């Protein structure tokens, strides 16, 4: 079990896709966004540089935990590796557990890289605020790891790739990664998973208190994604 987790982490760190989507893309986007919004003072109640720090850290964790996981699971179902693993003495939950554990390890660097970048751009928080924000973002990433597992088992392996890209892109746009929507559409968009994740980050960042609605919605998504992942995983094991 620990050997499998170690191997999974090793694989993620060796993977070029991981490097691009979770480290380089958020870094570049951060610099682009901060410059593009150069004339605006604040967004979502915080400074531009602080807003995009959270937005890009969540982009990194969601990329690592969702797309990497979902793609891997789809590919490994197709290649038969997932099947081969079921013929080892590894416990039944071992495969998914190792995937989520390696996700947890691989999202940390993406959060830290963005923190360092934002700090160098002048974002200042107290030590406890940095810690709280980091933890919030890290733990929030697990919810998306569950969504990644669910997507990886959502359909036949061949048709999963476009499903992942659509869900991922729509979530990012609605979630405020590239800026926020106004009006009634904005009122709807702020209840999407990524928007809530970003909201959670900003709350941790500013030390504001969390309202009950946001908290309930976050927990609701966590329960929904985890149940969905468990259901689809079981369905796959029954079928093959």
């Amino acid at each position, binding site marked *: *079990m620990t*050997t*499998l987790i170690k*191997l999974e982490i*090793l*694989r993620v760190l*060796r*993977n070029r896709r991981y490097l691009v989507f979770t480290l380089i893309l958020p870094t570049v986007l951060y610099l682009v966004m901060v410059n593009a919004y150069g004339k605006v003072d604040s967004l979502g109640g915080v400074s531009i540089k602080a807003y995009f720090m959270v937005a890009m850290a969540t982009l990194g964790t969601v990329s690592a935990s969702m797309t990497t996981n979902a793609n891997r699971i789809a*590919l*490994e179902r*197709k*290649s*038969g*590796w*997932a*099947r*081969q693993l*079921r*013929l*080892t*003495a*590894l*416990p039944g939950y071992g495969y998914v557990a190792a995937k989520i554990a390696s996700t947890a390890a691989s999202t940390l660097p993406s959060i830290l890289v963005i923190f360092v970048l934002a700090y160098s751009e002048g974002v200042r928080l107290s030590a406890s605020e940095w810690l709280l924000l980091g933890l919030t973002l890290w733990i929030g990433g697990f919810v998306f790891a569950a969504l990644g597992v669910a997507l990886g088992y959502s359909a036949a392996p061949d048709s999963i790739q476009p499903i992942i890209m659509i869900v991922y892109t729509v979530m990012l746009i609605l979630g405020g990664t590239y800026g926020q929507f106004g009006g009634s559409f904005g009122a709807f968009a702020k209840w999407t998973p990524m928007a809530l994740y970003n909201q959670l980050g900003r709350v941790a960042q500013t030390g504001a208190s969390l309202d009950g609605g946001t908290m309930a919605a976050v927990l609701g998504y966590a329960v929904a994604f985890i149940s969905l992942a468990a259901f689809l995983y079981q369905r796959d094991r029954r079928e*093959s």
Partner: protein
Amino acid sequence: MSTSVEQRTGAGRRGPGSGEVAAFRNVSKQFGAVKAVNDISLVLHPGETVAFLGRNGAGKSTSIDMLLGLRDPSAGSVTLFGGTPRQAILDGRVGVMLQSGGLMPDVKVRELVGFACGVHPRGYQVDAVLATAGITELADRMVDKLSGGQEQRVRFAIATAGDSDLIVLDEPTTGMDVKARQAFWSVMRAQADAGRTVLFATHYLEEADSIADRVLVMHNGRLIADGTAAEIKARAGQRKISFDLHPQDGADLSLLKLLPAVSSLDVSGHTVRIGSEDADATVAAIYRAGFYPRGLEVAGVGLEQAFFAITGEQDAADESAALGNALDKGNAR
């Protein structure tokens, strides 16, 4: 490596009946309207090397899936070492090499085989496993950069990473060249000689003939033959008789047509080839008819021909049964 008759027949190991490795009891598997496996019963005994034959779609893979607990039977029961397949796997009693078993990418061969050793309850040292599988020199290669035959050897290493009692191999030599196949089977024989039970599915019938001490033949979801390769060949009945007739011996070729038990007759030049259902009777009659056969040879057919003979018989039987049913229905109306 020499193989004694004793090893090949399994007589030197614990014989049949001294335990039960795997058992299928009236097992069927239905996919919608298709019956992929139809009422199979069989028991595998410790130390047996069993070949599992059948054309594509015969039900081999489905049977292996049920043996390993990857699929549940629609009817009947499958047990491994007296318990569920899943329990046997968790106990590390089964090593498996799947035909479709993909390998984890982005890792080195040593890391992957090391994982297999680590996860097995009685895993061996990774270096020993690599050496046994003959892939020591591949240890530092990335898994995704291997050729088909090399991948097969890594799969084999995973299947033999620990002290398992049963080794299941689904089409293990697919993608290997002749030399690699020979090397593979000599390694595999060592596993069997160590007292392990080996079950392998193959479509190379010469492999089954030379390695297995028991052959199972599946056809259209049914188990139509279960015995030694020799028994199955005998069941197909055919023997080949060939000899030369010299003109100076004064033979009357038309008499050949009167020989008993002949199923096929081919005369080309001086050479006569006869397929016979009863070689003893045919040969005796050849001499009685006054022939002087030179260079007489009597040979059994290969397992391959036997395989086609018995599956063909089965097809004919199925067809006539279907025809009979259709006629019955017609009469009832």
